[in-house]
């Protein structure tokens, strides 16, 4: 057994036989030609042939991986037809009287270098596209054949790098994973793996002798385990089965409604901490975003994020979700999440200290910047805003006044904004006790069960010594939730849960019976909960 390590670019487990794809090294020799016209004609025919091939590949990719995966072949056709590219080749043939193969190879190097020198990782990768079209031309000119994967058993494709043409030509019913020595998270290997939903590892240094051997691809850890021993193989077979069950769940439940057997609809949303989580929100088919923690905007910077910086992020999330609800929680720092430039004093008891809405209502400039960015972004999608750590009606009224000021300023400046639902987090016992009054002021409640549990039980959740008595199923906590739901409905607000308890499958039935309207959970929990709700009678 030998383990090789690289960088995982798509999760999953695959077991199969290794097949190393070796690129036929195209040795292109420079040779002098006498008949320039004939060489130009040969070149033109090769371009036509290449375009035909690319059309074929486009159609094949369209069927196998859909339009977005196939588009690259359309781009390749355009690259082939690009006047600068063509003129470069033709000029070389004409002025230097050299063979077409050589002219293509030199031109390919020049254009690939242009991309390789760009300061953008994605564009750097496009050097591979130039090489791909150029290799296609050279293959046609020299009538070379490319290698194909046509295996009988599940195959782990291993290569230095994979071009789009190579990947689309594979028999995908047999390929269950990709491993490459080079490439990046933007390379075609990674893109294809995502589309095909199979694990992929890049940047993995392998030995040629692994060809043909049995191996495991661990797309979580980025490991290629060659000739695994029986215990390891058994462990991974188990994991692979679990993964398969998950995929099956996805297949069964994706696109289905989250509705109980009695016909009650529950909104099932996802919690995210940044833009990078959006992909898993889509994959797991959440109906919206119930909690977008805006802290990362503040944590990843060394200055207060500007209105424009925030606006770009909020807008992009709103647009990506395309009309589905996106609930963004305003700044929730202090306590356990410290940021240098806020210059907050060290506190004896930060969980009960200067944090979240308490900061926003004292340092109103910071708050207004965020609200302006949020309202401007609301013109691009369905945005909701919620405020953390509320304890009183006074706070909510103050927030609403500030919101009105922000809206008036935007209107005056001619900036557009959409309809925004306003809600509050219910995470303090105080908020629960006055929830009936709070509900009349807002559109929704979202129960933050983590803090609500710690404040209700008076147990510091950071203190590991107290883990055994930190009981989130404590009847006091469940009664708090029940009361919040009832009072919310009385006052005309819908009620959701965005804390960890919302993803607790043993409580799903209880919450549904209590009358919960929405659950917001981490993306990977969406489908198991949907299943549970669909079974609720």
């Amino acid at each position, binding site marked *: 057994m030998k383990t090789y390590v690289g960088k995982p670019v798509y999760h999953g487990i695959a077991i199969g036989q290794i097949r190393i794809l070796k690129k036929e090294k195209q040795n292109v020799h420079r040779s002098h030609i006498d008949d320039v016209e004939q060489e130009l004609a040969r070149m033109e025919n090769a371009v036509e042939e290449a375009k035909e091939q690319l059309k074929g590949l486009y159609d094949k990719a369209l069927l196998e991986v859909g339009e977005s995966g196939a*588009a690259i072949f359309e*781009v390749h056709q*355009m*690259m082939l037809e690009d*006047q600068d590219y063509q003129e470069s080749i033709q000029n070389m043939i004409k002025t230097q009287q050299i063979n077409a193969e050589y002219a293509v190879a030199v031109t390919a190097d020049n254009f690939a270098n242009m*991309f390789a020198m760009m300061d953008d990782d994605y*564009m750097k990768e*496009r050097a591979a596209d130039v090489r791909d079209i150029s290799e296609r031309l050279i293959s046609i000119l020299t009538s070379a054949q490319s290698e194909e994967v046509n295996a009988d058993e599940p195959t782990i494709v291993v290569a230095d790098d994979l071009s789009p043409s190579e990947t689309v030509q594979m028999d995908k019913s047999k390929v269950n994973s990709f491993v490459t020595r080079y490439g990046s998270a933007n390379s075609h290997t990674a893109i294809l793996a995502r589309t095909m939903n199979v694990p992929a590892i890049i940047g993995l240094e392998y030995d040629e002798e692994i060809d043909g051997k049995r191996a495991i691809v661990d797309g979580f850890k980025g490991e290629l385990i060659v000739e695994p021993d029986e215990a390891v193989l058994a462990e991974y077979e188990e994991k692979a089965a679990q993964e398969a069950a998950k995929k099956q769940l996805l297949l069964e439940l994706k696109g289905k409604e989250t509705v109980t057997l009695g016909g009650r609809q529950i909104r099932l949303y996802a919690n995210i901490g940044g833009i990078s989580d959006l992909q898993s929100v889509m994959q797991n088919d959440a109906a919206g975003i119930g909690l977008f923690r805006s802290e990362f905007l503040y944590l990843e910077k060394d200055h207060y994020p500007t209105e424009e910086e925030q606006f*770009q992020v909020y807008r992009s999330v709103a647009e990506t979700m395309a009309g589905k609800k996106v609930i963004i929680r305003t700044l929730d720092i202090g306590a356990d999440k410290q940021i240098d430039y806020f210059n907050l004093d060290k506190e004896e008891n930060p969980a009960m200290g200067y944090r979240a809405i308490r900061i926003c209502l004292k340092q109103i400039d910071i708050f207004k910047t965020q609200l302006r960015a949020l309202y401007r972004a609301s013109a691009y999608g369905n945005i909701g805003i919620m405020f953390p750590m509320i304890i009183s009606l006074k706070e909510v009224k103050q927030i609403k006044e500030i919101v009105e000021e922000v809206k008036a300023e935007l209107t005056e400046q001619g900036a557009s904004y959409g309809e925004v639902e306003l809600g509050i987090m219910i995470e303090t016992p105080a908020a629960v006790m006055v929830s009936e009054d709070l509900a009349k002021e807002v559109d929704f409640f979202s129960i933050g069960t983590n803090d609500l549990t710690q404040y209700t039980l008076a147990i510091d959740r950071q203190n590991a010594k107290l883990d055994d008595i930190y009981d989130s199923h404590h009847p006091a906590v469940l009664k708090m939730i029940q009361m919040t739901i009832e009072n919310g409905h009385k006052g005309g607000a819908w009620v959701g849960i965005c804390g960890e308890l919302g993803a607790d499958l043993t409580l799903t039935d209880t919450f549904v019976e209590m009358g919960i309207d929405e659950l917001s959970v981490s993306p990977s929990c969406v489908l198991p909960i949907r299943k549970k709700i669909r079974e609720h009678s």
Partner: protein
Amino acid sequence: MVKFSFVVKDEMGLHARPAGQLVKEAGKCTSKVTIKKGEKSGDAKRIFNVMGLSVKHGDEVEIMVEGEKEEEEAAALEAFVAENI
């Protein structure tokens, strides 16, 4: 000459696919179509020119259309850009 500018909304910038779409659309025009980012500019009908500008998310890009049908072609391009890029 007619010109208009836009801000690239795509997270990845003007990457292969949108660049290709733009080139395809510009190719339908009889006018000369130039794309400009900052000091650099290129022929919008040539994909290597367009990709060579390395346009990123949030960049402002200017399109200039010059020819007999510049008015209507610029309008068509602008509508296309607003919808797709």
